[in-house]
C-alpha cells in the first residue's frame, strides 16, 4: 500500500477518534442546559467529562497536524478556505475550556451562569460547525487550477452542509446522553436514558437523510460500494444503540452510538477517496492523496513516529478512563466551592 493511502487512512482514524470521544463531551456540554435541573446536577454532568474532555480534544490537533505534515496542499486549501468557520470553532473551544476551569472559582450565581452559557454555546457551536465543514468537504467546494479555494464564506452555508451540521449536533447529543446514563447514578441517569431515546430517534432520521443525500452527491465516486456498506452499518449501529438504551443496556448503547459515529465518518472519507477535497468547478482541479501529499521521505519519517508514539498515547488515554471509571451522583458533589477561602483576607 502506498504511504499516501496509509496516511489518508490514519487521518480518517484520527477524525473518527476525535468525533467519537469529543462527540460525547460536546453532547454533555449541551446537556448541561437541557438535562440538569439544578446547580448540583449541572456539576454532576460537568464532572462526568471533567477528567477526559481535554484529552479528547487533542485528537483534533493531531488530525490537523497530520494533515499539515502529510498533505500540506489539503491543509492549506482547507484552513484558508474555511478560515472564518475554523476561527469560530477555535473561539468556542477556548471559551468552553476556560469555562470548565473558571465556573467554580467564585461563589456568585451570576458568575456561574455566564460560564454555563459558555459551556453550552462552546459545545453547540463546534458540534454544529464540524458537521457543516465536513458536509462542504464531501460536497466539494470551489477549488481552482492552483488548488486554491475561491468560494466565499456564504457558499459554505448550503442546505446539504447545514444538514450535515444537524447530523453532528443530534448525533453528539444522543452520544452524550448515553454517556451520561452510563456515568451517573440516580434520577439524572433515568432522565438521560429517556432523552437519549428521544433525541436518538431524531438523530437517526436526520442522519439517514444525510447519508442518502451524500450517496446522491458522490454517486460517481470510485468506492461508492464501500460507502453504501459503511453508511448502512452506521445506521444499523444507531438503531441498535437506541434498542439497547430502551432496554437499559447503557454500555451496549454507548458502544452503538460510538460505532455509528465511527462508521459514518469512515463512510464519508471512503466516499472521498482518492480525493481529499473535490473541486466543484472541475473534477480535474480536485485535491487528491497524490497531488496534495508531502514527499515520500517525509511520509516515511511520519510513519515511524506514528508507529512508535500512537500506542503510548492510546495507553495513557485509556488509563484516564480506567482511573475515572466510577459513576457519579449528586451525593458525590462536595458542597464547598473549590477555592472558597475559609479565612477572609483584609481587602475582599
Amino acid at each position, binding site marked *: 500500500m502506498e504511504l499516501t493511502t496509509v496516511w489518508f487512512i490514519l487521518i480518517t482514524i484520527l477524525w473518527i477518534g476525535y468525533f467519537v470521544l469529543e462527540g460525547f463531551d460536546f453532547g454533555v456540554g449541551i446537556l448541561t442546559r437541557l438535562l440538569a435541573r439544578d446547580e448540583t446536577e449541572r456539576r454532576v454532568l460537568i*464532572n462526568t467529562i471533567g477528567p477526559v474532555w481535554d484529552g479528547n480534544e487533542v485528537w483534533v490537533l493531531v488530525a490537523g497536524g497530520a494533515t499539515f505534515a502529510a498533505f500540506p496542499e489539503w491543509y492549506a486549501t482547507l484552513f484558508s478556505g474555511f478560515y472564518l468557520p475554523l476561527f469560530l470553532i477555535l473561539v468556542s473551544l477556548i471559551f468552553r475550556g476556560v469555562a*470548565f476551569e473558571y465556573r467554580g472559582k467564585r461563589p456568585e450565581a451570576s458568575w456561574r451562569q455566564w460560564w454555563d452559557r459558555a459551556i453550552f454555546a462552546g459545545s453547540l457551536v463546534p458540534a454544529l460547525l464540524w458537521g457543516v465543514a465536513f458536509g462542504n468537504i464531501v460536497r466539494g467546494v470551489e477549488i481552482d487550477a492552483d488548488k486554491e479555494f475561491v468560494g466565499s464564506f456564504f457558499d459554505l452555508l448550503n442546505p446539504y452542509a447545514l444538514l450535515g451540521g444537524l447530523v453532528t449536533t443530534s448525533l453528539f447529543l444522543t452520544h452524550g446522553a448515553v454517556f451520561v446514563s452510563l456515568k451517573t447514578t440516580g434520577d439524572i441517569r433515568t432522565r438521560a436514558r429517556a432523552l437519549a431515546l428521544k433525541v436518538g430517534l431524531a438523530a437517526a432520521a436526520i442522519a439517514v437523510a444525510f447519508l442518502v443525500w451524500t450517496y446522491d452527491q458522490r454517486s460517481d465516486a470510485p468506492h461508492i460500494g464501500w460507502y453504501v456498506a459503511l453508511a448502512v452499518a452506521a445506521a444499523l449501529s444507531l438503531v441498535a444503540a437506541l434498542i439497547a438504551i430502551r432496554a437499559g443496556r447503557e454500555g451496549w448503547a454507548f458502544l452503538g452510538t460510538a460505532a455509528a459515529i465511527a462508521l459514518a465518518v469512515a463512510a464519508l472519507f471512503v466516499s472521498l477517496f482518492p480525493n481529499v477535497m473535490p473541486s466543484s468547478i472541475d473534477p480535474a482541479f480536485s485535491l487528491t492523496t497524490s497531488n496534495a501529499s508531502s514527499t515520500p521521505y517525509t511520509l516515511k519519517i511520519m510513519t515511524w513516529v506514528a508507529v512508535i508514539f500512537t500506542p503510548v498515547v492510546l495507553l495513557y488515554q485509556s488509563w484516564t478512563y480506567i482511573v475515572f471509571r466510577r459513576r457519579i451522583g449528586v451525593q458525590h458533589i462536595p458542597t464547598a466551592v473549590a*477555592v472558597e477561602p*475559609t479565612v477572609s483576607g483584609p481587602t475582599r
Partner: protein
Amino acid sequence: FTEMGRQPWIVFGLMPTSAGVSPGTTLTEVLISLIGFTLVYGFLAIIEVRLLLKTIHGGLPEIPPADDESTGAGMTGTTETERPLAFAY
C-alpha cells in the same frame, strides 16, 4: 519579536514571507481573526488576573482537622464509593 527579526523570510533563507501568503484568505478575514483573538485573550487575561488577586487576598485556607473524616458519625454507613469527590469541577 522572533517574527520581526526573521523578516523578510518565513523560513529563513529558503522561503520569503510574500511566498507564504494565502491567496484565498482576504484582508477582512485576517483582520476579524486578529481583532477577535486579541479581544478574547485580553478579556480572559483580565479575568485571570482578577481571579489570581482574589485568591491571593483570600489567603491560605484552614487545614481541616485530621480526624474530621476518618472518625465519628461520618464514617458509619459511608463507603469509599459514596464519599464526595476530593476534587470536583
